[in-house]
C-alpha cells in the first residue's frame, strides 16, 4: 500500500471559494495536487487563473483553507520562496533590459549581488535569452517576452512553478524547448501547474489534469482515470485488424456496443462501447475462435480533448 503523501509535498485546497463581489471565481474547490505536471483545463471564466492566483498568494480565499507545500498563502515571505509564477499579463516594468528585469526582482529575495547575477544568467541561458539579455524588454517580440517572463519565474529556483498560458506566442521550436523544460522540472519532483488552451499539448505533457467549469472542479486526476469515470459516454476504441467487418458483425450482437464503423484503409474499426472490459474479453474470445490478426487496440478518446468535450462540451465556450 502506497503511503499517503504528506501536505508538505502537496498543494492543497480544502473547500476553497473565491468570489469577486457577487461574481464567482471558484466555488468549494477541494484538491490535493501532487508533484509533477498538472494542467488546468477549462473554458474562459472557468476559474483557472483564479486558482493560480490563489496558489501564488496574489489573491486570498473568501472561504476555505489552502496551503502550498504546507505554507498558507497569507505568508508571502515564505510562500514566494517556494513559488514561481508566470502570469498571463504581458506587462513589464518600463525601462529595464531583460537582464535587469530578472536581476532586480531576484535582489528582492535578499540574495547577494554575485548570486543574483549568476542565477539571472542561468535563467536567461535556460530560456535561450542570453543574446537578448541587454536589450530593453519593451523591444522584445511576443515570444521573447513570454520567454523572459518564464526565465523570471524560474530564476529563484522555485519548488512550485505556476504558468498561465505559458506557450502563448512561442514559435514551434521554442514551444518544444519549453515543454522539455517543464518535463525536466516535473521529473525532478517539482510541481508544474500549467493552464493552456492547446489541448493536444496539455495531453502530451500532463501527469494529471484538473478540469474546471463555471468555477467548479469537474474532474481531476490522470486523464485515463478521469475518462474511465465518465460512464455516461461510451468509450471509443480503435482496433486495427485484418477482418474488421467480421469483428464488427460479432460486436453488433452485444448490447454494450453502441456503434462500430470501418475507417481509413479498411483495416481500422472504430467502436463505441458502454463496457470496455466486456469488449476486451469479447475481443480475446474472437481472436481465439477466428484467428483474427489484430495489429493494434487503443482507446481513441482518453485524451484531454475528448474528456473536455464530454464533461464540459461546447456549453463552456472556447477553451
Amino acid at each position: 500500500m502506497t503511503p499517503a503523501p504528506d501536505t508538505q509535498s502537496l498543494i492543497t485546497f480544502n473547500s476553497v471559494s473565491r468570489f469577486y463581489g457577487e461574481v464567482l471565481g471558484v466555488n468549494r474547490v477541494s484538491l490535493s495536487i501532487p508533484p509533477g505536471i498538472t494542467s488546468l483545463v477549462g473554458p474562459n471564466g472557468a476559474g483557472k487563473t483564479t486558482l493560480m492566483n490563489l496558489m501564488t498568494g496574489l489573491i486570498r480565499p473568501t472561504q476555505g483553507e489552502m496551503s502550498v507545500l504546507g505554507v498558507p498563502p497569507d505568508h508571502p515571505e515564505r510562500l514566494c520562496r517556494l513559488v514561481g509564477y508566470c502570469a498571463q499579463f504581458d506587462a513589464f516594468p518600463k525601462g529595464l533590459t531583460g537582464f535587469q528585469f530578472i536581476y532586480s526582482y531576484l535582489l528582492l529575495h535578499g540574495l547577494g549581488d554575485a548570486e543574483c547575477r549568476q542565477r539571472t544568467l542561468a535563467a536567461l541561458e535556460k530560456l535561450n535569452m542570453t543574446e537578448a539579455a541587454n536589450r530593453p524588454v519593451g523591444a522584445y517580440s511576443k515570444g521573447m517576452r513570454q520567454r523572459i517572463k518564464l526565465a523570471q519565474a524560474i530564476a529563484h529556483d522555485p519548488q512550485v512553478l505556476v504558468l498561465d498560458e505559458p506557450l502563448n506566442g512561442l514559435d514551434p521550436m521554442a514551444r518544444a524547448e519549453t515543454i522539455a523544460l517543464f518535463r525536466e522540472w516535473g521529473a525532478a519532483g517539482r510541481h508544474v501547474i500549467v493552464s493552456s488552451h492547446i489541448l493536444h499539448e496539455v495531453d502530451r505533457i500532463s501527469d494529471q489534469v484538473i478540469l474546471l467549469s463555471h468555477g467548479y472542479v469537474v474532474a481531476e486526476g490522470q486523464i485515463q482515470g478521469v475518462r474511465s469515470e465518465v460512464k455516461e459516454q461510451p468509450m471509443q476504441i480503435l482496433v486495427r485488424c485484418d477482418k474488421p467487418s467480421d469483428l464488427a458483425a460479432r460486436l453488433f450482437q452485444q448490447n454494450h456496443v453502441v456503434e462500430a464503423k470501418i475507417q481509413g484503409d479498411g483495416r481500422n474499426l472504430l467502436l463505441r462501447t458502454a463496457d470496455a472490459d466486456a469488449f476486451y474479453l469479447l475481443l480475446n474470445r474472437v481472436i481465439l475462435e477466428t484467428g483474427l490478426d489484430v495489429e493494434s487496440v487503443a482507446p481513441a478518446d482518453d485524451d484531454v480533448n475528448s474528456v473536455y468535450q464530454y464533461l464540459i462540451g461546447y456549453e463552456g465556450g472556447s477553451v
Partner: protein
Amino acid sequence: MNALWMRQIGAVLRLEWKKTFFNKRAWWIYMLAAGPVSITLIHWLFELNRPVSMARHSLGDDSVGYAAMFQFFYLRGAIFFGCVGIFANLFRAEMLEKTLHYYYLTPLRRELLVAGKYLAGLVTSVVLFAGSAALSFLLIGRHFGPAYNDYLMHGPGLSQLGWYTLTAALACAGYGAVFLMCGLIFRNPMIPAAVVYVWENLNPFLPALAKKISVIFYLRNLCPVEVPLPPPLNIVVVDTDPTPVWIAIPGLLAVTALLLMYTAHTARQGEISYGE
C-alpha cells in the same frame, strides 16, 4: 531591522529609481524643481547687468520675495504637485501597467515594500525640491556680492537656508505619505489630491481648530520669514497662535508615520486584481 530587510529595502530603492525616476514621463516634475532655480538665476544675471541709474531693491526685499516664493510656489505648488506625481504613482502606476504582481511575487514583506517605495520617493523629492529651494535661496541675493556672503555666513542667512531646506524636506515627507496612501487606496488618486489641495489652500481662511488639521499650517510655522498678505486677503485671514517648533516637527513626523503604517497595513491585506 535585520540585514535581510535592509538588503530588500535597498533593492526596492534601486529598482524604483531605475524604472520610475529616470523616466521621460517625469519631465514636468523636474521642470517644477528647476523653474525657481532658473528664475533666481535670471534674477541674479539681470541684477548684475542693471544700470546704476535704476533703483535697486534691498536684501530685505529679496528675503521677503524668497519667503513668498517658498510659501506660495514651493509649498503650495511645486512640492505639493511634485509629491502627487512621485508618490501617488508608486503603486497606482504599477496597477495601471499591471506590473505590481512582480513585487507581490517576491518574498518581501509588504511593509518593507511600502517603506522602500516611500524612501525612494522621499529621497527623490527631497533631492529635487529641498535642493531646488536651497539653490534658489543661494542665488536670490547673489547679486549683492560680499554683502550676501556676509548675510549668509554672519547674519541670519544660513539659519534661514537651514529652515527652508528642512521645511521643504518635511513637506516632501508629509505630502509623500499622504499621496503614497492615496495611490494605494484610491483608483483615481487625483480626486483626493484635489480635495487635499483645496483644503490646504483654504487653510489661512479656516477657523483656528480646522486650520490645525493640515500639513501646510505646520510647515508655514516653520518658515523663518513671514509673508505679509496684501489687502483684502489680510482681512479675511484668521490669525492663530503659531505652533511651537517642538510640536510642529514631531507632530508632522507622527502623522507621517501613522499614514505610512496605515498604508503598510493596506498593502499587507492587498490583492492583485488590476480591476478585472
